[in-house]
Protein backbone atom coordinates (compact mmCIF):
# COMPACT_ATOMS: atom_id res chain seq x y z
CA UNK A 1 0.00 0.00 0.00
CA UNK A 2 1.02 3.60 -0.27
CA UNK A 3 -0.19 7.09 0.55
CA UNK A 4 -0.76 9.21 -2.54
CA UNK A 5 -1.98 12.38 -0.88
CA UNK A 6 -1.61 14.07 2.48
CA UNK A 7 -3.57 17.14 3.59
CA UNK A 8 -3.07 18.84 6.92
CA UNK A 9 -5.11 21.52 8.64
CA UNK A 10 -3.76 22.96 11.89
CA UNK A 11 -1.60 19.89 12.52
CA UNK A 12 1.52 20.76 14.56
CA UNK A 13 3.33 23.61 12.77
CA UNK A 14 1.18 23.34 9.62
CA UNK A 15 -1.75 25.70 9.20
CA UNK A 16 -2.50 23.98 5.95
CA UNK A 17 -0.56 21.74 3.60
CA UNK A 18 -1.34 19.55 0.61
CA UNK A 19 1.33 17.14 -0.48
CA UNK A 20 1.30 14.64 -3.33
CA UNK A 21 3.16 11.45 -2.59
CA UNK A 22 4.02 8.37 -4.59
CA UNK A 23 5.30 4.84 -4.27
CA UNK A 24 9.07 4.58 -3.96
CA UNK A 25 11.43 6.26 -1.51
CA UNK A 26 10.63 9.87 -0.63
CA UNK A 27 13.20 11.87 1.28
CA UNK A 28 12.16 14.97 3.27
CA UNK A 29 15.24 17.09 3.81
CA UNK A 30 15.58 20.35 5.68
CA UNK A 31 17.23 22.02 8.68
CA UNK A 32 16.13 21.25 12.24
CA UNK A 33 12.69 22.31 13.38
CA UNK A 34 11.24 22.90 9.91
CA UNK A 35 8.40 20.37 10.08
CA UNK A 36 9.79 17.12 8.62
CA UNK A 37 8.86 14.86 11.51
CA UNK A 38 5.48 16.60 11.77
CA UNK A 39 4.62 15.30 8.28
CA UNK A 40 5.43 11.67 8.90
CA UNK A 41 3.93 11.83 12.38
CA UNK A 42 0.61 12.83 10.78
CA UNK A 43 0.67 9.80 8.48
CA UNK A 44 1.60 7.48 11.32
CA UNK A 45 -1.22 8.96 13.42
CA UNK A 46 -3.78 8.09 10.77
CA UNK A 47 -2.62 4.46 10.93
CA UNK A 48 -2.18 4.07 14.68
CA UNK A 49 -4.27 6.88 16.25
CA UNK A 50 -1.32 7.74 18.41
CA UNK A 51 1.91 9.66 18.11
CA UNK A 52 5.39 8.22 18.52
CA UNK A 53 6.41 11.40 20.33
CA UNK A 54 3.62 12.34 22.72
CA UNK A 55 1.07 10.49 24.83
CA UNK A 56 -1.68 13.13 24.53
CA UNK A 57 -3.18 14.79 21.46
CA UNK A 58 -2.90 18.44 22.53
CA UNK A 59 0.62 19.00 21.11
CA UNK A 60 -0.58 17.72 17.72
CA UNK A 61 -2.93 20.67 17.32
CA UNK A 62 -1.36 23.87 16.04
CA UNK A 63 -0.94 26.37 18.86
CA UNK A 64 -4.02 28.60 18.91
CA UNK A 65 -6.22 26.21 16.92
CA UNK A 66 -9.01 24.07 18.42
CA UNK A 67 -8.60 20.91 16.34
CA UNK A 68 -6.53 19.41 13.55
CA UNK A 69 -7.61 17.56 10.47
CA UNK A 70 -5.39 15.01 8.74
CA UNK A 71 -6.55 13.55 5.47
CA UNK A 72 -4.74 10.81 3.57
CA UNK A 73 -5.49 9.04 0.34
CA UNK A 74 -4.35 5.43 0.53
CA UNK A 75 -3.86 3.16 -2.48
CA UNK A 76 -4.04 -0.58 -1.89
CA UNK A 77 -3.84 -2.86 -4.89
CA UNK A 78 -5.23 0.02 -6.98
CA UNK A 79 -8.19 0.50 -4.67
CA UNK A 80 -8.40 3.97 -3.22
CA UNK A 81 -9.46 4.92 0.30
CA UNK A 82 -9.63 8.42 1.75
CA UNK A 83 -9.28 8.58 5.51
CA UNK A 84 -10.00 11.80 7.31
CA UNK A 85 -9.28 12.18 11.01
CA UNK A 86 -10.32 15.13 13.10
CA UNK A 87 -8.23 15.42 16.25
CA UNK A 88 -10.13 17.09 19.10
CA UNK A 89 -7.99 17.17 22.25
CA UNK A 90 -10.99 18.46 24.26
CA UNK A 91 -13.37 15.71 23.17
CA UNK A 92 -13.72 12.67 20.98
CA UNK A 93 -11.87 12.38 17.69
CA UNK A 94 -13.94 11.87 14.57
CA UNK A 95 -13.22 9.93 11.41
CA UNK A 96 -14.60 9.80 7.92
CA UNK A 97 -13.92 7.13 5.32
CA UNK A 98 -14.20 7.93 1.61
CA UNK A 99 -15.91 11.22 2.41
CA UNK A 100 -18.92 9.36 3.78
CA UNK A 101 -20.65 9.92 7.09
CA UNK A 102 -18.68 10.26 10.29
CA UNK A 103 -17.78 6.86 11.73
CA UNK A 104 -16.21 5.75 14.98
CA UNK A 105 -12.47 6.36 14.72
CA UNK A 106 -11.89 2.66 15.39
CA UNK A 107 -13.59 1.77 12.15
CA UNK A 108 -10.83 3.30 10.02
CA UNK A 109 -8.04 1.40 11.78
CA UNK A 110 -6.39 -1.15 9.54
CA UNK A 111 -6.99 0.75 6.28
CA UNK A 112 -3.52 2.30 6.44
CA UNK A 113 -0.65 0.46 8.08
CA UNK A 114 2.68 2.02 8.99
CA UNK A 115 5.88 0.98 10.68
CA UNK A 116 7.93 3.87 11.99
CA UNK A 117 11.59 3.80 12.95
CA UNK A 118 12.77 6.74 15.02
CA UNK A 119 15.48 7.67 17.51
CA UNK A 120 12.86 7.06 20.25
CA UNK A 121 13.06 3.32 19.49
CA UNK A 122 16.09 2.96 21.72
CA UNK A 123 13.61 3.37 24.60
CA UNK A 124 12.04 0.04 23.60
CA UNK A 125 15.21 -1.63 24.81
CA UNK A 126 16.44 0.74 27.51
CA UNK A 127 13.22 2.22 28.80
CA UNK A 128 10.29 1.28 31.03
CA UNK A 129 7.87 -1.62 30.43
CA UNK A 130 5.14 0.85 29.39
CA UNK A 131 6.91 1.58 26.10
CA UNK A 132 7.18 -2.11 25.28
CA UNK A 133 3.50 -2.68 26.10
CA UNK A 134 2.58 0.21 23.81
CA UNK A 135 4.75 -1.31 21.06
CA UNK A 136 2.99 -4.66 21.41
CA UNK A 137 -0.53 -3.25 21.57
CA UNK A 138 0.00 -0.87 18.65
CA UNK A 139 1.25 -3.76 16.51
CA UNK A 140 -1.61 -5.95 17.69
CA UNK A 141 -4.17 -3.33 16.66
CA UNK A 142 -2.54 -2.77 13.27
CA UNK A 143 -2.61 -6.50 12.63
CA UNK A 144 -6.09 -7.13 14.03
CA UNK A 145 -8.04 -3.88 14.40
CA UNK A 146 -10.70 -5.49 16.61
CA UNK A 147 -8.14 -5.31 19.42
CA UNK A 148 -8.68 -1.55 19.56
CA UNK A 149 -12.06 -2.27 21.16
CA UNK A 150 -10.53 -4.90 23.47
CA UNK A 151 -7.86 -2.44 24.54
CA UNK A 152 -10.35 0.31 25.23
CA UNK A 153 -12.67 -2.03 27.18
CA UNK A 154 -9.71 -3.15 29.24
CA UNK A 155 -8.59 0.40 29.99
CA UNK A 156 -12.11 1.37 31.00
CA UNK A 157 -12.59 -1.70 33.21
CA UNK A 158 -9.25 -0.92 34.83
CA UNK A 159 -10.23 2.68 35.57
CA UNK A 160 -13.58 1.58 37.01
CA UNK A 161 -11.96 -1.06 39.18
CA UNK A 162 -9.20 1.26 40.41
CA UNK A 163 -11.81 3.81 41.32
CA UNK A 164 -13.73 1.20 43.31
CA UNK A 165 -10.57 -0.10 45.03
CA UNK A 166 -9.68 3.42 46.06
CA UNK A 167 -13.06 4.15 47.61
CA UNK A 168 -13.60 0.68 49.12
CA UNK A 169 -10.10 0.49 50.55
CA UNK A 170 -10.06 4.03 51.88
CA UNK A 171 -13.36 3.85 53.73
CA UNK A 172 -12.26 2.14 56.93
CA UNK A 173 -15.80 1.18 57.97
CA UNK A 174 -17.21 0.32 54.56
CA UNK A 175 -14.14 -1.68 53.72
CA UNK A 176 -14.95 -5.30 53.16
CA UNK A 177 -18.66 -4.53 53.34
CA UNK A 178 -20.69 -7.11 51.50
CA UNK A 179 -22.04 -4.68 48.91
CA UNK A 180 -18.61 -3.22 48.09
CA UNK A 181 -17.09 -6.69 47.79
CA UNK A 182 -19.94 -7.93 45.60
CA UNK A 183 -19.40 -4.98 43.26
CA UNK A 184 -15.68 -5.64 43.26
CA UNK A 185 -16.37 -9.24 42.24
CA UNK A 186 -18.27 -7.91 39.24
CA UNK A 187 -15.40 -5.66 38.17
CA UNK A 188 -12.96 -8.53 38.70
CA UNK A 189 -15.01 -10.45 36.15
CA UNK A 190 -15.07 -7.53 33.68
CA UNK A 191 -11.33 -6.94 34.03
CA UNK A 192 -10.57 -10.65 33.72
CA UNK A 193 -12.69 -11.02 30.60
CA UNK A 194 -11.13 -8.08 28.73
CA UNK A 195 -7.72 -8.87 30.24
CA UNK A 196 -7.76 -12.48 29.04
CA UNK A 197 -8.66 -11.31 25.54
CA UNK A 198 -5.82 -8.76 25.48
CA UNK A 199 -3.39 -11.23 27.01
CA UNK A 200 -4.26 -13.91 24.47
CA UNK A 201 -3.74 -11.42 21.65
CA UNK A 202 -0.36 -10.36 23.00
CA UNK A 203 0.80 -13.94 23.56
CA UNK A 204 -0.10 -14.96 20.03
CA UNK A 205 1.60 -11.85 18.69
CA UNK A 206 4.81 -12.47 20.65
CA UNK A 207 4.90 -16.09 19.46
CA UNK A 208 4.65 -14.90 15.85
CA UNK A 209 7.06 -12.02 16.30
CA UNK A 210 9.85 -13.75 18.23
CA UNK A 211 11.46 -15.70 15.36
CA UNK A 212 11.55 -12.54 13.23
CA UNK A 213 13.31 -10.65 16.04
CA UNK A 214 15.94 -13.35 16.45
CA UNK A 215 16.71 -13.55 12.73
CA UNK A 216 16.73 -9.79 12.21
CA UNK A 217 19.01 -9.24 15.18
CA UNK A 218 21.46 -11.82 13.85
CA UNK A 219 21.34 -10.04 10.53
CA UNK A 220 21.69 -6.48 11.84
CA UNK A 221 24.37 -7.23 14.43
CA UNK A 222 26.46 -9.63 12.37
CA UNK A 223 29.61 -7.55 12.82
CA UNK A 224 29.98 -8.90 16.31
CA UNK A 225 29.67 -12.68 16.31
CA UNK A 226 30.58 -14.18 19.66
CA UNK A 227 32.60 -17.31 20.04
CA UNK A 228 30.26 -18.70 22.68
CA UNK A 229 27.24 -18.06 20.49
CA UNK A 230 25.76 -16.39 23.54
CA UNK A 231 24.36 -13.35 21.85
CA UNK A 232 21.20 -14.63 20.28
CA UNK A 233 18.36 -12.19 20.66
CA UNK A 234 15.15 -13.55 22.12
CA UNK A 235 11.76 -12.26 23.12
CA UNK A 236 9.50 -13.50 25.91
CA UNK A 237 6.26 -12.21 27.38
CA UNK A 238 6.35 -11.90 31.13
CA UNK A 239 3.03 -11.75 32.96
CA UNK A 240 2.11 -11.21 36.59
CA UNK A 241 0.06 -14.39 36.44
CA UNK A 242 1.59 -17.82 35.84
CA UNK A 243 1.08 -18.46 32.14
CA UNK A 244 -0.26 -21.74 30.82
CA UNK A 245 2.64 -23.61 29.26
CA UNK A 246 1.01 -24.18 25.90
CA UNK A 247 -1.78 -22.55 23.96
CA UNK A 248 -3.76 -19.47 24.82
CA UNK A 249 -7.14 -20.59 26.04
CA UNK A 250 -9.04 -17.42 26.95
CA UNK A 251 -11.11 -19.12 29.65
CA UNK A 252 -7.99 -20.48 31.33
CA UNK A 253 -6.35 -17.04 31.18
CA UNK A 254 -9.44 -15.37 32.67
CA UNK A 255 -9.51 -17.96 35.46
CA UNK A 256 -5.83 -17.41 36.16
CA UNK A 257 -6.41 -13.65 36.32
CA UNK A 258 -9.36 -14.11 38.70
CA UNK A 259 -7.35 -16.43 40.94
CA UNK A 260 -4.48 -13.95 41.15
CA UNK A 261 -6.87 -11.08 41.90
CA UNK A 262 -8.36 -13.11 44.73
CA UNK A 263 -4.88 -13.76 46.11
CA UNK A 264 -3.93 -10.09 45.86
CA UNK A 265 -7.20 -8.58 47.06
CA UNK A 266 -5.91 -7.31 50.41
CA UNK A 267 -2.87 -5.74 48.81
CA UNK A 268 -5.01 -4.18 46.11
CA UNK A 269 -7.40 -2.70 48.68
CA UNK A 270 -4.44 -1.36 50.68
CA UNK A 271 -2.86 0.27 47.66
CA UNK A 272 -6.10 1.29 45.96
CA UNK A 273 -4.94 0.10 42.52
CA UNK A 274 -5.19 -3.02 40.39
CA UNK A 275 -1.99 -5.01 40.69
CA UNK A 276 -2.99 -7.88 38.42
CA UNK A 277 -3.46 -7.82 34.67
CA UNK A 278 -1.79 -7.12 31.34
CA UNK A 279 -1.25 -3.48 32.31
CA UNK A 280 1.51 -4.73 34.62
CA UNK A 281 3.17 -7.11 32.17
CA UNK A 282 6.38 -6.69 30.20
CA UNK A 283 8.22 -7.94 27.20
CA UNK A 284 11.55 -9.45 28.21
CA UNK A 285 14.32 -8.89 25.67
CA UNK A 286 17.38 -11.06 26.11
CA UNK A 287 20.76 -11.39 24.46
CA UNK A 288 22.08 -14.85 25.18
CA UNK A 289 21.52 -15.44 28.87
CA UNK A 290 21.29 -11.77 29.82
CA UNK A 291 18.49 -9.26 29.69
CA UNK A 292 19.16 -6.56 27.11
CA UNK A 293 17.95 -3.84 29.45
CA UNK A 294 20.79 -2.85 31.73
CA UNK A 295 23.31 -5.22 30.10
CA UNK A 296 23.42 -4.64 26.35
CA UNK A 297 25.90 -2.13 24.94
CA UNK A 298 24.67 0.96 23.17
CA UNK A 299 25.28 -0.60 19.75
CA UNK A 300 23.62 -3.86 20.75
CA UNK A 301 20.63 -1.94 22.07
CA UNK A 302 20.31 -0.13 18.75
CA UNK A 303 20.49 -3.43 16.88
CA UNK A 304 17.76 -4.83 19.10
CA UNK A 305 15.53 -1.82 18.56
CA UNK A 306 16.00 -2.13 14.81
CA UNK A 307 15.32 -5.87 14.98
CA UNK A 308 12.02 -5.22 16.80
CA UNK A 309 10.85 -2.76 14.14
CA UNK A 310 12.07 -4.91 11.26
CA UNK A 311 10.26 -7.88 12.78
CA UNK A 312 7.06 -5.84 13.06
CA UNK A 313 7.46 -4.80 9.45
CA UNK A 314 7.95 -8.38 8.25
CA UNK A 315 4.96 -9.59 10.23
CA UNK A 316 2.63 -6.98 8.74
CA UNK A 317 4.07 -7.52 5.28
CA UNK A 318 3.36 -11.25 5.60
CA UNK A 319 -0.37 -10.41 5.45
CA UNK A 320 0.16 -9.67 1.78
CA UNK A 321 0.67 -5.91 1.54
CA UNK A 322 3.65 -3.74 2.46
CA UNK A 323 2.96 -1.31 5.28
CA UNK A 324 4.25 2.21 4.68
CA UNK A 325 7.76 2.34 6.11
CA UNK A 326 8.66 5.57 7.91
CA UNK A 327 12.25 6.33 8.84
CA UNK A 328 12.39 9.45 10.98
CA UNK A 329 15.97 10.62 11.41
CA UNK A 330 17.37 7.12 11.76
CA UNK A 331 20.10 6.84 9.16
CA UNK A 332 22.21 9.44 10.97
CA UNK A 333 22.17 7.27 14.10
CA UNK A 334 23.42 4.09 12.43
CA UNK A 335 26.83 2.74 11.54
CA UNK A 336 27.54 1.49 8.01
CA UNK A 337 26.52 -2.08 8.61
CA UNK A 338 23.13 -1.26 10.13
CA UNK A 339 22.61 1.39 7.46
CA UNK A 340 23.16 -1.21 4.74
CA UNK A 341 20.79 -3.65 6.37
CA UNK A 342 18.05 -1.03 6.61
CA UNK A 343 18.78 0.13 3.04
CA UNK A 344 18.24 -3.38 1.71
CA UNK A 345 14.75 -3.45 3.28
CA UNK A 346 14.00 0.05 1.99
CA UNK A 347 14.86 -0.92 -1.57
CA UNK A 348 12.24 -3.70 -1.56
CA UNK A 349 9.35 -1.77 0.02
CA UNK A 350 6.44 -0.22 -1.85
CA UNK A 351 6.61 3.14 -0.08
CA UNK A 352 9.22 4.57 2.25
CA UNK A 353 9.20 8.04 3.80
CA UNK A 354 12.55 9.22 5.11
CA UNK A 355 13.36 12.39 7.02
CA UNK A 356 16.85 13.80 7.54
CA UNK A 357 18.41 17.15 8.31
CA UNK A 358 20.99 16.84 5.55
CA UNK A 359 20.80 14.92 2.30
CA UNK A 360 24.12 13.22 3.01
CA UNK A 361 22.49 11.26 5.85
CA UNK A 362 20.39 9.25 3.40
CA UNK A 363 21.99 6.74 1.02
CA UNK A 364 21.63 8.77 -2.21
CA UNK A 365 21.05 5.89 -4.62
CA UNK A 366 17.95 4.84 -2.67
CA UNK A 367 15.93 8.00 -3.03
CA UNK A 368 13.40 8.31 -5.82
CA UNK A 369 11.56 11.50 -4.77
CA UNK A 370 13.13 14.52 -3.12
CA UNK A 371 11.23 17.04 -0.99
CA UNK A 372 12.68 20.13 0.64
CA UNK A 373 11.07 21.20 3.92
CA UNK A 374 11.66 24.76 5.04
CA UNK A 375 9.57 26.87 7.41
CA UNK A 376 6.57 24.66 6.95
CA UNK A 377 6.72 24.74 3.17
CA UNK A 378 7.14 21.42 1.43
CA UNK A 379 8.42 21.62 -2.12
CA UNK A 380 9.33 18.94 -4.57
CA UNK A 381 12.89 19.09 -5.75
Amino acid sequence: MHVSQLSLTDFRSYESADIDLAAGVSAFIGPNGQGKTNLVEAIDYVATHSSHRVATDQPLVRAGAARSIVRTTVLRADRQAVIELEINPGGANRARLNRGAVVRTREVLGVLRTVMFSPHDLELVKGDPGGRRRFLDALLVQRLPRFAAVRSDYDRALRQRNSLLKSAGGRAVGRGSEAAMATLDVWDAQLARAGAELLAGRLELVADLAPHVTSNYADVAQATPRADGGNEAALAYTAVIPLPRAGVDRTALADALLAEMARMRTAELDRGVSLVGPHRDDLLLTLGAMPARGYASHGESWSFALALRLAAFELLRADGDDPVLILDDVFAELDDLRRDRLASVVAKTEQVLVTAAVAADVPADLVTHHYAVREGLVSRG
Partner: protein
Amino acid sequence: MVQDLIDELGRLPGVGPKSAQRIAFHLLSTDPTDVRRLAGVLMEVKDRVRFCVTCGNVAEEEQCRICRDPRRDLTVLCVVEESKDVIAIERTREFRGRYHVLGGAISPIEGIGPDELRIRELMQRLADDTVTEVILATDPNLEGEATATYLTRMLRPLGLRVTRLASGLPVGGDLEYADEVTLGRAFEGRRSVDD
Protein backbone atom coordinates in the same frame (compact mmCIF):
# COMPACT_ATOMS: atom_id res chain seq x y z
CA MET B 1 -27.34 37.98 32.45
CA VAL B 2 -26.71 36.53 29.01
CA GLN B 3 -23.68 34.71 30.35
CA ASP B 4 -25.86 33.17 33.10
CA LEU B 5 -28.18 31.82 30.42
CA ILE B 6 -25.26 30.41 28.43
CA ASP B 7 -23.87 28.77 31.57
CA GLU B 8 -27.24 27.20 32.45
CA LEU B 9 -27.73 25.85 28.93
CA GLY B 10 -24.17 24.53 28.89
CA ARG B 11 -24.97 22.35 31.90
CA LEU B 12 -27.51 20.37 29.86
CA PRO B 13 -26.36 16.98 28.55
CA GLY B 14 -25.06 17.08 24.99
CA VAL B 15 -24.85 20.88 24.89
CA GLY B 16 -21.31 22.16 24.49
CA PRO B 17 -20.22 25.77 25.03
CA LYS B 18 -20.67 26.60 21.33
CA SER B 19 -24.21 25.21 21.16
CA ALA B 20 -25.11 26.88 24.46
CA GLN B 21 -24.10 30.20 22.98
CA ARG B 22 -26.05 29.56 19.80
CA ILE B 23 -29.23 28.60 21.71
CA ALA B 24 -28.88 31.60 24.03
CA PHE B 25 -28.65 34.09 21.17
CA HIS B 26 -31.46 32.33 19.36
CA LEU B 27 -33.68 32.78 22.42
CA LEU B 28 -32.73 36.46 22.67
CA SER B 29 -33.95 37.08 19.13
CA THR B 30 -37.10 34.98 19.52
CA ASP B 31 -40.62 36.36 19.97
CA PRO B 32 -41.36 36.84 23.72
CA THR B 33 -44.54 34.72 23.55
CA ASP B 34 -42.55 31.76 22.21
CA VAL B 35 -40.03 32.06 25.01
CA ARG B 36 -42.85 32.34 27.56
CA ARG B 37 -44.42 29.18 26.17
CA LEU B 38 -41.09 27.29 26.43
CA ALA B 39 -40.63 28.49 30.01
CA GLY B 40 -44.22 27.43 30.76
CA VAL B 41 -43.68 23.92 29.42
CA LEU B 42 -40.45 23.58 31.38
CA MET B 43 -42.17 24.54 34.62
CA GLU B 44 -45.16 22.33 33.85
CA VAL B 45 -43.18 19.13 33.23
CA LYS B 46 -41.19 19.82 36.35
CA ASP B 47 -44.44 20.20 38.35
CA ARG B 48 -46.51 17.47 36.73
CA VAL B 49 -44.09 14.75 35.67
CA ARG B 50 -42.72 12.54 38.38
CA PHE B 51 -41.31 9.08 38.67
CA CYS B 52 -43.56 6.05 38.85
CA VAL B 53 -43.61 4.70 42.41
CA THR B 54 -43.63 1.16 41.06
CA CYS B 55 -41.11 1.06 38.23
CA GLY B 56 -39.24 4.40 38.30
CA ASN B 57 -40.29 5.37 34.78
CA VAL B 58 -41.44 8.95 34.13
CA ALA B 59 -45.13 9.29 34.99
CA GLU B 60 -47.81 11.95 35.14
CA GLU B 61 -49.61 10.24 38.00
CA GLU B 62 -48.42 8.17 40.89
CA GLN B 63 -47.96 5.24 38.53
CA CYS B 64 -46.82 5.41 34.92
CA ARG B 65 -49.01 4.57 31.93
CA ILE B 66 -47.48 1.10 31.59
CA CYS B 67 -47.86 0.06 35.22
CA ARG B 68 -51.51 1.19 35.11
CA ASP B 69 -52.27 -0.79 31.92
CA PRO B 70 -54.15 -3.99 32.95
CA ARG B 71 -53.28 -5.71 29.65
CA ARG B 72 -49.59 -5.86 30.44
CA ASP B 73 -48.12 -9.21 31.39
CA LEU B 74 -47.27 -9.17 35.10
CA THR B 75 -45.02 -12.21 34.95
CA VAL B 76 -42.23 -10.65 32.87
CA LEU B 77 -40.14 -7.73 34.06
CA CYS B 78 -37.65 -5.88 31.87
CA VAL B 79 -34.84 -4.07 33.73
CA VAL B 80 -33.43 -0.99 31.99
CA GLU B 81 -31.06 1.81 32.93
CA GLU B 82 -33.14 4.86 32.01
CA SER B 83 -36.66 5.94 31.10
CA LYS B 84 -35.49 6.63 27.56
CA ASP B 85 -34.73 2.92 27.20
CA VAL B 86 -38.40 2.19 27.99
CA ILE B 87 -39.37 4.44 25.08
CA ALA B 88 -36.91 2.66 22.76
CA ILE B 89 -38.22 -0.79 23.72
CA GLU B 90 -41.88 0.28 23.51
CA ARG B 91 -41.22 1.37 19.92
CA THR B 92 -40.35 -2.21 18.96
CA ARG B 93 -43.79 -3.49 20.19
CA GLU B 94 -42.04 -6.78 21.01
CA PHE B 95 -42.43 -6.57 24.75
CA ARG B 96 -45.75 -6.83 26.63
CA GLY B 97 -44.49 -7.12 30.19
CA ARG B 98 -43.60 -4.36 32.61
CA TYR B 99 -40.40 -2.44 33.35
CA HIS B 100 -38.06 -1.58 36.13
CA VAL B 101 -35.92 1.53 35.67
CA LEU B 102 -32.66 1.43 37.62
CA GLY B 103 -31.69 5.05 37.15
CA GLY B 104 -28.25 4.32 35.68
CA ALA B 105 -25.58 1.66 35.69
CA ILE B 106 -22.85 0.69 38.14
CA SER B 107 -19.93 3.04 37.55
CA PRO B 108 -17.43 3.57 40.39
CA ILE B 109 -15.79 6.45 38.47
CA GLU B 110 -19.03 8.38 38.74
CA GLY B 111 -19.61 7.17 42.31
CA ILE B 112 -22.54 4.97 41.30
CA GLY B 113 -22.76 1.68 43.16
CA PRO B 114 -25.72 -0.67 43.73
CA ASP B 115 -27.04 1.57 46.53
CA GLU B 116 -27.38 4.49 44.14
CA LEU B 117 -29.57 2.44 41.79
CA ARG B 118 -33.14 1.23 42.34
CA ILE B 119 -32.00 -2.32 43.08
CA ARG B 120 -33.56 -2.58 46.53
CA GLU B 121 -36.92 -1.60 44.97
CA LEU B 122 -36.41 -4.30 42.35
CA MET B 123 -35.85 -6.98 44.98
CA GLN B 124 -39.00 -5.85 46.78
CA ARG B 125 -41.03 -6.13 43.57
CA LEU B 126 -39.81 -9.69 43.06
CA ALA B 127 -40.62 -10.82 46.61
CA ASP B 128 -44.19 -12.03 45.92
CA ASP B 129 -43.39 -14.53 43.13
CA THR B 130 -45.67 -12.88 40.53
CA VAL B 131 -42.71 -12.27 38.25
CA THR B 132 -41.24 -15.43 36.72
CA GLU B 133 -38.84 -13.93 34.18
CA VAL B 134 -36.50 -10.95 34.49
CA ILE B 135 -35.00 -9.60 31.27
CA LEU B 136 -31.80 -7.66 31.82
CA ALA B 137 -31.78 -4.94 29.16
CA THR B 138 -28.94 -2.76 30.41
CA ASP B 139 -26.76 -1.09 27.75
CA PRO B 140 -24.38 -3.36 25.80
CA ASN B 141 -21.31 -1.60 27.16
CA LEU B 142 -18.91 -2.27 30.03
CA GLU B 143 -20.99 -0.59 32.74
CA GLY B 144 -24.21 -2.16 31.45
CA GLU B 145 -22.59 -5.60 31.43
CA ALA B 146 -21.22 -5.10 34.94
CA THR B 147 -24.68 -4.12 36.15
CA ALA B 148 -26.25 -7.16 34.46
CA THR B 149 -23.63 -9.44 36.03
CA TYR B 150 -24.29 -7.93 39.46
CA LEU B 151 -28.06 -8.37 39.09
CA THR B 152 -27.70 -11.92 37.82
CA ARG B 153 -25.82 -12.83 40.97
CA MET B 154 -28.48 -11.17 43.12
CA LEU B 155 -31.37 -12.82 41.30
CA ARG B 156 -30.05 -16.33 40.90
CA PRO B 157 -31.02 -17.48 44.42
CA LEU B 158 -34.63 -16.42 43.75
CA GLY B 159 -35.10 -19.21 41.22
CA LEU B 160 -36.46 -16.98 38.44
CA ARG B 161 -35.65 -17.21 34.77
CA VAL B 162 -33.05 -14.49 34.15
CA THR B 163 -32.43 -13.54 30.53
CA ARG B 164 -30.17 -11.10 28.70
CA LEU B 165 -30.91 -9.54 25.32
CA ALA B 166 -29.36 -11.44 22.44
CA SER B 167 -26.11 -10.13 21.04
CA GLY B 168 -26.29 -8.23 17.79
CA LEU B 169 -26.80 -4.92 19.51
CA PRO B 170 -24.03 -2.49 18.65
CA VAL B 171 -21.36 -3.32 21.21
CA GLY B 172 -20.17 -0.47 23.38
CA GLY B 173 -23.26 1.54 22.58
CA ASP B 174 -26.48 2.78 24.11
CA LEU B 175 -29.72 0.85 23.94
CA GLU B 176 -31.58 3.97 22.88
CA TYR B 177 -29.55 4.25 19.68
CA ALA B 178 -30.26 0.71 18.52
CA ASP B 179 -32.78 0.66 15.68
CA GLU B 180 -36.19 -0.92 16.26
CA VAL B 181 -35.59 -4.01 14.14
CA THR B 182 -32.28 -4.86 15.83
CA LEU B 183 -33.68 -4.23 19.29
CA GLY B 184 -36.82 -6.24 18.51
CA ARG B 185 -34.70 -9.14 17.33
CA ALA B 186 -32.53 -8.92 20.43
CA PHE B 187 -35.69 -9.33 22.52
CA GLU B 188 -36.93 -12.31 20.61
CA GLY B 189 -33.55 -14.02 20.75
CA ARG B 190 -32.94 -13.38 24.47
CA ARG B 191 -31.12 -16.12 26.31
CA SER B 192 -30.92 -17.37 29.86
CA VAL B 193 -27.77 -16.27 31.62
CA ASP B 194 -25.68 -18.74 33.58
CA ASP B 195 -23.54 -16.14 35.25
